[in-house]
């Protein structure tokens, strides 16, 4: 018995799109009754405009966030350049600033479509149910990203029953997928809404969009000074100030938190392993090597960054001492801290060979504060702060790649 496969597909499509029996009318009360949401400001056009703005903002957040993830967990095909020096500072600053701007955008966008939550009948067919489930997923994931981002920036982890970095990254894919799906489904509605010329006076809607803009502007103005130093004094709602911290520079992890307060100048040794074997350098030996001074920012994934002047030994000089070619070597930098997710980091060849990459011994002319990684820390151009390993105890040079 050979069946016609096209007939089967047609039958499946009919079943999928077939209307479901309507629910009894007496359930239609409360928000489900007609005209339960009387605001004349809601319109397909307003929703479309907000949706486009939000789509652009989410695209920026997704691209910059994915980039940050790739830099921190580089797969084989990915390489991140050492120049321009402050590129990561810009991409991550934009990531957080754009994410914060999404607060009013997402809020008003969801307000504009809220009545659709109580659409009647709640489900028309299986296809309609699937579409609604997709929207629910998009709403959940979008709220997840914005709220978890705000909570992380504010260092308030109690409400989040998951590890922020992993959760935020994984849900980003959920937003991306559900958003592509949503755009695909809604494209005709958006086109129709934007094409229509409006004859009615639109003052109320213009006022609403102005309010969204004002909210976004105020949030930016009160937070962006965490990375833009000229606006530092306005950053009254920023979780960091670029000049607040030991030696005038913010710190994420203190020596006390890392358990490195017992490191002393007298007993400190830097172990340097390479093709030429292992050598140990004490602080005097490090200070006796050629010293270089560079201006490099420290950039946090949380969106703040601050420039500083660092003095120390070029990593490339140490790699040569270990018997390897800095242009082709990668270096595993390990901290003296006992544990922690960012106890070590790998410096690729692009950064190893860069003359700006230092094992820094001084910050703004002073010996490093214990919280800044005394006696020695890594500082390299265009890298996230979590990869600028502090309290460096061991360098392992891996030769030609």
């Amino acid at each position, binding site marked *: 018995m050979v069946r016609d496969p096209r007939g089967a597909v047609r039958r499946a499509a009919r079943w999928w799109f077939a209307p479901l029996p309507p629910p009894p009318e007496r359930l239609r009360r409360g928000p489900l009754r007609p005209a339960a949401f009387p605001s004349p400001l809601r319109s397909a056009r307003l929703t479309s405009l907000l949706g486009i703005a939000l789509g652009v903002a989410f695209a920026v957040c997704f691209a910059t966030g994915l980039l940050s993830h790739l830099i921190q967990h580089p797969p084989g095909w990915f390489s991140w350049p050492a120049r321009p020096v402050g590129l990561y500072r810009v991409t991550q600053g934009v990531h957080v600033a754009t994410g914060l701007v999404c607060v009013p955008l997402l809020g008003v966008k969801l307000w504009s479509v809220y009545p659709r939550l109580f659409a009647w009948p709640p489900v028309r067919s299986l296809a309609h149910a699937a579409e609604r489930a997709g929207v629910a997923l998009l709403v959940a994931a979008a709220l997840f990203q914005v709220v978890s981002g705000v909570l992380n920036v504010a260092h308030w982890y109690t409400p989040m029953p998951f590890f922020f970095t992993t959760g935020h990254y994984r849900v980003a894919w*959920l937003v991306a997928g559900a958003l592509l799906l*949503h755009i695909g489904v809604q494209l005709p509605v958006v086109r129709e809404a934007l094409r229509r010329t409006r004859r009615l006076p639109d003052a109320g809607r213009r006022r609403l969009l102005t309010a969204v803009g004002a909210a976004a502007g105020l949030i930016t103005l009160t937070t962006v000074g965490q990375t833009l130093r000229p606006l530092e004094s306005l950053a009254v709602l920023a979780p960091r100030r670029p000049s607040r911290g030991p030696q005038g520079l913010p710190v994420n992890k203190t020596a006390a938190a890392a358990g490195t307060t017992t490191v002393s100048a007298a007993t400190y040794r830097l172990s340097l392993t390479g093709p030429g074997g292992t050598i140990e350098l004490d602080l005097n030996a490090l200070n006796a090597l050629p010293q270089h001074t560079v201006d490099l920012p420290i950039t946090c994934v949380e969106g703040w960054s601050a420039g500083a002047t660092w003095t120390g030994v070029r990593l490339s000089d140490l790699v040569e001492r270990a018997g390897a070619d800095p242009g082709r070597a990668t270096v595993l930098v390990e901290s003296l801290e006992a544990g922690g997710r960012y106890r070590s980091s790998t410096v690729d060849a692009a950064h190893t060979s860069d003359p700006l990459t230092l094992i820094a011994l001084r910050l703004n002319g002073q010996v490093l504060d214990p919280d800044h990684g005394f006696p020695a820390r890594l500082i390299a151009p265009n890298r996230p702060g979590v990869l600028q390993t502090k309290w460096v105890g061991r360098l392992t040079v891996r030769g030609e790649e």
Partner: protein
Amino acid sequence: MIGLRRALIVSGVLVTAYGIWGVLPDPGVLLFLAAMVVAHDLVWMPVVLLTGAVLRRPIARTAALVAASVLVVGLPLVVARRPAGNPSVLPLDYGRNLLAVLAGIIVAGALTAGLGRIRKRTERPAGRDDR
């Protein structure tokens, strides 16, 4: 357009499937996702709509919208506890700063309303002259 839509929907389904596969093993993430929808749709939005019903004047509504947005960003800073021994994390008095920003929003709203009233009053005689 049909081709573009089809491409968007197919890639959307694939990426969503990848996303679901990523979050399924993490019950904490699933819980937070569900909590977000419930909190937004059943708590936050009714509060917003009630506030809108109480505040009838457009300027008051605008001010409330801006204030609500600032609260979402600012409240976690107030509630979060500063990590011990690290004065560079959350270095400011955020409770005071948030109140100051909210006060600024109210003042700006009142000034805008006042300016609007003055403008209306000065425009009225001119309108009469035109007749």
